[in-house]
């Protein structure tokens, strides 16, 4: 945005922040087009390719009111234009107006999915065995395997690795999955994993030989 235009925008935002109720008319008149373009982006991101001009007109007005209400929190030196800075609020405006979109459930596809074998970490080779295999190929893995053997029991080693693998698969409750698989409570799994990680961190901190552990993602 060019300097003069940006200065005008800053003036309008300042006036709205100060409670000048006429300023929102100026925002609409002068910057409605740009706000409309930002709204189109939000609409497209929601998977809607076409919006009627009168609908967009209403959305622009709602967005102007929304920007008016939060004008005091916007900072011109923040580097983002108000409608970019308030993108989440604009998204809410769109959702309020259009509603949350969802595709119709495809029953045939769902049938195929339910017949497919379950994909889970449980189907993978044992994590401990995988780490052993990787240790032969990679120094970091070898270091981790050695450190785990030094600080944790076989059960705690397996629990930590299972938990991390499950989390990396996108499981929203990895501790619950691991707990169910091992006949434990999720709290106990979390506690065991925390204990092992604490010991690994301490080892990395105190033993120079294991200092390289602190760079590994598993410890972060």
């Amino acid at each position, binding site marked *: 945005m060019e300097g003069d235009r940006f200065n005008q925008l800053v003036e309008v935002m300042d006036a709205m922040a100060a409670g000048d109720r006429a300023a*929102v008319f100026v925002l*609409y008149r002068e910057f409605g087009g740009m706000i409309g373009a930002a709204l189109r982006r939000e609409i497209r991101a929601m998977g809607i390719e076409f919006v009627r001009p009168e609908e967009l*007109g209403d959305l*622009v007005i709602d967005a102007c009111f929304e920007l008016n209400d939060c004008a005091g929190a916007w900072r011109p030196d923040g580097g983002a234009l108000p409608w970019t800075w308030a993108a989440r609020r604009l998204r809410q405006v769109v959702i309020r107006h259009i509603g949350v979109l969802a595709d119709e459930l495809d029953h045939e596809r769902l049938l195929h999915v339910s017949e497919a074998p379950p994909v889970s970490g449980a189907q993978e080779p044992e994590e401990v065995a995988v780490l052993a295999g990787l240790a032969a190929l990679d120094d970091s893995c070898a270091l981790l395997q050695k450190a785990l053997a030094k600080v944790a029991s076989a059960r705690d080693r397996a629990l930590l690795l299972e938990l991390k693998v499950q989390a990396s698969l996108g499981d929203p409750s990895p501790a619950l999955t691991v707990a169910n698989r091992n006949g434990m409570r999720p709290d106990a799994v979390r506690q065991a994993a925390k204990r092992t990680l604490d010991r690994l961190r301490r080892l990395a901190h105190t033993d120079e030989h294991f200092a390289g552990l602190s760079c590994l993602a598993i410890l972060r």
Partner: protein
Amino acid sequence: MMRRLAPAVTDAKRSHPASSWQPDHDHFRRRVEERLRDDGCARPEFVAAVLEVRARLGLDVAGFAELLRVDRSVVDEAEAGCPARAVVLALARLAPDIDWPALIRGPARPALRRASDRATLEQR
């Protein structure tokens, strides 16, 4: 280089979705009226029209009062929905396209009171 690019940039700006957008001032004013009504404004149509005229002129309250040759407090009161006769006459001179008397005809809607105001009234 810049000179050769300039027409392309102009064309791109012209075909940008934002450039085809046209403000609908009447619609916007009606929506402001709705908001004012929801906020308990006594004369939302009048207040919205005053705000629109002031915005059109690009003036703050002080500048607008100066233009209308009234005290700033008179403009404040008008924008709160309590217009003095002087300000209505001045507005009619300034923006004759708007039927100002029609906007203030009839009794004002009772403005919503804050809980603190209500408590003060009850004490009296």
